[in-house]
């Protein structure tokens, strides 16, 4: 048996069990040592620097080829750009000149040269250029690791996949990790809606987040069991514990298999109330997973990942290709394309310089601030609308003024295409996310000017309760069953239905069995979630009666605390089964 010292508890972020060796993914150097190089050793020091640079370039070539196969040619492009930075004369030649002049070791000079560039970039206003800092830090790490002989980025293999243990993972980190060589993720920080959780669920890889000091308590190469359902980690487990979890793993895969048998059956309650169950995706390659899990369509395509993975602004043509591919792949099912939603929690580390990014320039605000950039995306979406059933959705709308501004730009893009004789589907429906409390309060007025609402519960909860979901000190206050949230949602659904538009939910709440039952009872029309969660929610819907859910939801709206709501739901809805509450 395990004693308590060998177990860690965190926030379950993606279900499933992983058994494997830990790989500590740490790419920051705390200190770079400096020492004197005597005159007769200078040429040797320069040769050592050149060798490190050559090795780093070679690794990038390997990485580039692998990403081209694993993701696509476009995503691999970033590593060609990294090579160009390593070969930059203002980096290489300057470092060599300074080693000669200052008689200091290569790592200290190189580090100083890179730091100089990074501090220059911190002053740039445009976030797309400032964001390059994350790339420069990657490059800095890569060359320093070669010079100091420290551990390299995981170039693992598919036969012995590792469990990645990191402080936090940024989108560029996850792009770089070879997906086939990873069987689990563990991070020190984050919540159920952090980037790591979203990516892990998208990939169907178990993950646990928010384990304080996991990177300190787990050592490289240590055998680890990760139970993504319970949020438990076992360090150095004995044979008996491994056997027990291997059995559970088999049982879970059989269970999933059974759930997949629901694939072709509709999400309909016993008394005939149908509900749209759609999938949230980040990347075009996820469409197979969407279809495999029996989704009715894509309820949220997060286009910002296209921008983040390409490290810059993808061209209209690149965006068009991605949107067209998704539209075609799931047609005649629909795809809701959410316009660029770059926000504080999605930016790579050290990029955001706003004092309060959650309340800063993000979502639609960012796009309205850059109409030329925004119209490139709107044109790409419109052009792709010919290939299937596309809908468009604006994020972070706070009121009518922003909605009308976004719609005016959409209208302009349509006029431009008409003038240029480029075909598009003129009946593309336009919806908006409701995730800002002011929009929730204005839902009646907003509903008259859009075709649908999709409630983004993650942000709606964060802004309504005023709690940062990524901050472990207050994360426990982040509560989907807070009565204020449920009452807010009830009023949004009512406003939508009074104006004859449909209302969905695309936050993590949609995949939470108890919360989903309450949402259904409130009359919600659509639930959108990670593909992996669809079969379980479908099973629950098919085992309940809508009239019962309606009665339950009405009673829940009268309860003043989430504890009472949770107790009431447990007593009245045992069918929700393996609940997370």
């Amino acid at each position: 048996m395990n004693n308590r010292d060998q177990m860690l508890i965190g926030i379950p972020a993606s279900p499933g069990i992983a058994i494997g060796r830990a790989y500590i993914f740490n790419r920051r150097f705390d200190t770079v040592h400096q020492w004197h190089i005597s005159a007769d050793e200078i040429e040797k020091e320069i040769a050592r620097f050149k060798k490190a640079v050559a090795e780093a370039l070679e690794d990038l070539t390997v990485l580039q080829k692998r990403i081209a196969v694993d993701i696509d040619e476009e995503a691999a492009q970033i590593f060609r750009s990294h090579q160009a930075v390593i070969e930059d004369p203002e980096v290489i030649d300057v470092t060599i000149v300074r080693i000669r002049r200052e008689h200091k070791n290569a790592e200290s000079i190189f580090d100083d040269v890179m730091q100089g560039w990074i501090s220059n970039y911190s002053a740039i206003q445009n976030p797309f250029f400032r964001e390059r800092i994350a790339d420069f830090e990657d490059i800095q790490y890569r060359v320093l690791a070669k010079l100091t002989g420290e551990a390299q980025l995981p170039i693992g293999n598919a036969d012995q996949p590792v469990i990645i243990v990191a402080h936090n993972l940024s989108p560029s980190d996850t792009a770089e990790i070879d997906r086939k060589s990873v069987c689990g993720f563990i991070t020190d920080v984050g919540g159920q809606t952090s980037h790591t959780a979203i990516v892990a669920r998208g990939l169907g890889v178990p993950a646990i987040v928010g384990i304080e000091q996991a990177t300190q308590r787990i050592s490289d190469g240590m055998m680890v069991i990760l139970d993504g359902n319970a949020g438990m980690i076992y360090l150095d487990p004995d044979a008996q514990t491994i056997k027990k979890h291997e059995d559970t793993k088999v049982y879970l895969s059989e269970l999933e298999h059974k759930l997949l048998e629901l694939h072709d059956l509709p999400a309909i309650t016993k008394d005939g109330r149908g509900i749209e169950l759609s999938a949230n995706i980040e990347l075009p390659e996820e469409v197979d997973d969407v279809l495999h899990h029996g989704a009715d369509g894509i309820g949220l395509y997060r286009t910002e990942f296209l921008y983040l993975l390409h490290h810059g602004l993808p061209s209209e043509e690149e965006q068009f290709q991605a949107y067209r591919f998704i539209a075609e792949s799931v047609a005649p099912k629909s795809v809701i394309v959410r316009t660029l939603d770059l926000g504080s929690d999605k930016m790579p580390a050290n990029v955001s310089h706003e004092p309060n990014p959650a309340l800063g320039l993000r979502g639609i605000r960012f796009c309205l601030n850059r109409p030329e950039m925004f119209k490139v995306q709107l044109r790409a979406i419109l052009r792709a609308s010919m290939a299937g059933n596309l809908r468009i959705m604006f994020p972070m709308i706070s009121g009518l003024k922003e909605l009308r501004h976004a719609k005016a730009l959409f209208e302009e893009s349509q006029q431009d295409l008409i003038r240029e004789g480029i075909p598009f589907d003129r009946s593309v429906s336009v919806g908006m996310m409701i995730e800002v409390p002011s929009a929730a309060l204005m839902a009646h007025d907003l509903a008259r000017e859009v075709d649908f609402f999709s409630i983004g519960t993650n942000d709606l909860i964060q802004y309504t309760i005023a709690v940062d979901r990524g901050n472990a000190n207050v994360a426990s206050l982040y509560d989907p069953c807070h009565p204020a949230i449920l009452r807010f949602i009830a009023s949004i659904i009512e406003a939508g239905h009074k104006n004859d538009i449909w209302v969905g939910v695309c936050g993590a709440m949609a995949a939470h069995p108890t919360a989903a039952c309450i949402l259904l009872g409130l009359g919600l029309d659509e639930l959108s979630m990670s593909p992996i969660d669809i079969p379980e929610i479908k099973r629950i819907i098919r085992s309940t009666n809508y009239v019962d859910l309606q009665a339950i939801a009405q009673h829940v709206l009268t309860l003043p605390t989430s504890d009472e709501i949770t107790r009431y739901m447990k007593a009245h809805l045992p069918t929700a089964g393996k609940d997370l509450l």
Partner: protein
Amino acid sequence: MLQQTITILNKSGLHMRPAEQLVHLASQYQAEITLIKDDLQINGKSIMGILMLAAEHGSALTIKTDGTDEQEALQALVDLFEHHLGEQDE
């Protein structure tokens, strides 16, 4: 020494990929190549420098070339800018 001022035509500006194209081309010439935007002046063979310009769509850049092949270098760079730095956004 030659110089010419051009406008950034590609929609997404002088970001990572076009910057890389530019460096690749500039490095093929012997001439010293300098790019100037507002009061910032950088080495045209340095991707770090080019990205520092944070040159967006519509901004004006001055290209200076100085060396034996300055004529050819300037012509080639102006051509690249006119062709949207290899971006297919039109």
